[in-house]
């Protein structure tokens, strides 16, 4: 039902959005000779601005690897990856860091918050690397925490927060720099169903408010139903690509 609401909002009356992510013939190989593993075996993929894409597939199918390459955390062995028309292969480490900072937000399965550091400080972290002034940083971080409904837990440390709250802090951290692109690697993998649904509702809302492009890896078909497009990976290849109803049936 929620999915229906989302797609109906996006489908009609919209100017064709530009392609933001483009992969051409992407291979990722591990090992050599007989032990060679093709984590990605020739991926061609286009994602347009504002799309909500769920990436599914069995373990070892290459969905996480694809995600890491999309997030510029990893580089492909061969192939071309264009981010907003820029060949990522031509960028050096610092330019990639800039790209991640300005354009991408990451949410991980294991939350990956800094331990013994307050929620507020965790959310402020990306802004520190942007050289945002202390005062403005605090305000932006508080805004982001309010956005995920944790405005009153700013001083709590990760170990004082529940899993769902921690993941919301992580989402606040990912969105505090207002990136156009959010990458989520099994964001609900460590959460119970009710909390997972909460998080997904929040993500869908945020996406509609901010016109985010979201790529999310997930195991669970229920979670994938929130997306408008599902990529199903098998053995390093995209086996199926389409609306969740179609792909998951």
């Amino acid at each position, binding site marked *: 039902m929620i999915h229906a609401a989302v797609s109906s909002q996006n489908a009609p009356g919209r100017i064709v959005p530009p392609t933001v992510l483009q992969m051409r013939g992407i291979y990722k190989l591990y090992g050599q000779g007989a032990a060679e593993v093709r984590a990605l075996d020739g991926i061609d993929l286009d994602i347009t601005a504002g799309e909500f894409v769920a990436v599914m597939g069995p373990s070892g199918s290459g969905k996480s690897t694809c995600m*890491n390459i999309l*997030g510029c*955390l*990893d580089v492909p062995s061969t192939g071309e990856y264009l981010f907003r028309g820029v060949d990522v292969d031509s960028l050096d*480490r*610092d330019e990639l*860091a*800039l790209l*991640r*900072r*300005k354009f991408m*937000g*990451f949410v*991980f399965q294991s939350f*990956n*918050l*800094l331990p*013994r*550091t307050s929620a507020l400080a965790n959310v402020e*972290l*990306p802004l*520190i*690397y*942007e*050289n945002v002034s*202390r005062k403005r940083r605090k305000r932006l971080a508080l805004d982001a925490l309010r956005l995920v409904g944790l405005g009153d837990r700013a001083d709590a440390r990760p170990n004082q927060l529940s899993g769902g709250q921690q993941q919301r802090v992580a989402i606040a*951290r*990912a969105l505090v*720099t207002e990136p156009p692109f959010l990458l989520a690697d099994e964001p609900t993998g460590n959460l119970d169903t009710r909390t997972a649904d909460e998080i997904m509702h929040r993500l869908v809302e945020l996406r509609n408010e901010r016109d985010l492009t979201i790529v999310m890896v997930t195991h669970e078909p229920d979670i994938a139903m929130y997306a408008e497009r599902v990529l199903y990976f098998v053995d390093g290849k995209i086996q199926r690509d389409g609306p969740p109803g179609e792909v998951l049936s």
Partner: protein
Amino acid sequence: MNSTDTLAMAGQAIARNKLRSFLTTLGIIIGVASVIAMVHLGQSATRSVEQQFANIGSNLLFVMPGMSQHGPSALRVSAEPFEMEDVAAIRREVPGILVAPAVSRNETVVYGNANQNIRVEGSTNEYFTVRNHPVARGREFEKAELSSGAAVCIIGTTVVDEMYLNTEALGSNLRVGRTACRVIGVLEQRGLSMGQDRDDVIVMPIKAVQRRLAGNLDVNTVYISALQDGTSSRVKREIESLLRQRRRITQDEDDDFYVRDTQDIMDALSETTATMTLLLGGIAAVSLLVGGIGIMNIMLVSVTERTREIGIRLAIGARSRDVLQQFLVESVVLATLGGVIGVLIGMAGTWLMTEQFNMPFVASPGVIVLGFSFSMTIGVVFGYFPARKAARLNPIDALRHE
């Protein structure tokens, strides 16, 4: 990333592991503290020696019979003492000096119930000027007393105390050896010099000591003061050649007397101090090196421990240089903290030691700055390798690290 944020981050990381941070910096603390303490103690000792020399009298030369053998043992072999004619010859032949011949003996001195062994110097009125030890109360010797060898004496303040003479010193009669001796003066207080109490002395006319106590006309020591600054080495040369002549020493023989210049002693002392400083500097350098390795070791552990954190930082947009900076600043802050604590401990130690040994407390800002900058340098040098290791991590490998 601005410097305040970097510093704050380093502070948090250090505060998170207080005990470990402290143990890490212990090497630096010990190294810096020992450098600071040693250098300052050396300077205090030098200052103290200088003060004592100013006290003894500047441009002072001691002429004594005896041979100083070469080599490390520097044994002195006794030789013929001087005669009064030698002293007269020095007065006659060497210009621009003040000469005080002296006979020095230890005698039992008795006054009332007090009984002490005290150094007795027989000399002339020049003694008070040459040894920079003037008469504070009473008077110097009269000509007649000197020429007749009268039993009169001028005593140091320690003798006044030892003999319980506080109120009635002048005019009292002390028994010095076998002679009764009238006190005609009290010397100015001088205090310790080279571990010797300069006030524990009785000065008598030289003839009185020779005739009444020694029983011969020998002269053990000639104290000489060069009247003009910077002439002491010339005076020394002239006295040496004069005495060689008078004592009939042939060309290929060594001197059977020696002339000691206070400058010589100062030079020897400063040479010793320099050697000690070098030695201690070496030890300090080694301990700082060990301290630096300690820091490097812990920083490497820290980088491994925090690999995941580094991954998170890289994922959210930290550049390699931000990570490098973070870890480098952390190690520099650690090392500098060690430096600060080390300087404090070193200064406290110096203060305690100087109090204990009655030396002047010298604080040298140069050495303190050197201690700081050395520890900071250690932080940079030994922090760089671990920091670079952190900065070079691959984001995805770092994130996957367990």
